[in-house]
C-alpha cells in the first residue's frame, strides 16, 4: 500500500510537471523525482518481501493494509513538506524575496 501510494503520488506529480514544463517555477520536477526515487526503493523492498512470503504478499490482513495506507499518506505529506521547504529556500518566483523586501 505504501508503494502504491507513492507510485500514484509520483505519477500525479509527473503529469503536473509535464503540463508546466519547461518552466520549473514550482519545482515539480524535484517533487516527482523524490517520489519516483522512493517508489523504486519500495519496489525493491516489495520484491524481497515477495521472495520471502510468496503469494501471501498479495493478501495482507485488512489492519495491515490500513496501517500501510496511513503510512503511505503520511509519507506523501512528509514529501510535500520537504518540497515546500525546498520551494521556499530556492524561491524560483521570487515570492519570498518579494515579502521580505519592499521595491522602491
Amino acid at each position, binding site marked *: 500500500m505504501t508503494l502504491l501510494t*507513492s507510485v500514484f503520488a509520483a505519477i500525479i506529480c509527473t503529469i503536473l510537471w509535464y503540463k508546466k514544463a519547461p518552466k520549473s517555477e514550482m519545482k515539480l520536477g524535484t517533487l516527482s523525482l523524490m517520489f519516483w526515487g*522512493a517508489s523504486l526503493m519500495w519496489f525493491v523492498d516489495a520484491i524481497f518481501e515477495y521472495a520471502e512470503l510468496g503469494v501471501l504478499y498479495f493478501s495482507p490482513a485488512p489492519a495491515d493494509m490500513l496501517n500501510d495506507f496511513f503510512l503511505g499518506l*503520511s509519507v506523501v505529506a512528509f514529501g510535500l513538506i520537504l518540497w515546500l521547504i525546498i520551494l521556499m529556500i530556492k524561491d524560483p518566483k521570487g515570492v519570498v524575496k518579494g515579502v521580505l523586501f519592499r521595491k522602491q
Partner: protein
Amino acid sequence: MACFIVSATEALIVTVAQKMIEKKEKSPEEVKVEFAPGTIQSAHGIKFSEKLKWLRTMLWGGSGLLAFEHVWHGEVIPWFPFLTAASNPADAAEMLHEMSTVGVGMALLVTGVWAGMVCVSALIEKNAIASSEVKK
C-alpha cells in the same frame, strides 16, 4: 531496518561528484532544435551535471522518505545508537545483511533507472538535432 543508509551514502557521493563536475564543465554548444512541428529554434543541451542532479534528487528524496518510514516503525530513534537494530549483535548482523541485499538493490535500481533516463535523453537530443538539420 536501515536499508536507506546505502542510498543516502550514494546520494552524498553523487552530490560531491556533481558539484565537482559542475565547476569543471564547459557550456554545451548551441544547436538548432525543432521543438514543435515547424518551429526550429536555437538551443543548447543540458550539461551532464544537470543530469546528475536527477540521480541526486531521486537518491536524497527516496532515502529521506524511507528514513521517515523507519522512524514510523520505530527502527530509527533520536538517541544513540540511533538505529534500534544496532543495540545488540544479533540484530546488528541482520541489519547489515539487509543493507547488503535490499539496500544495495535499491541503490542499484535507482542508479540503473537514472542511467536509462540519461541514455533515452541522449537519444532524444540526437534525434531532435538530426531532424532539424534535415529540415533546414
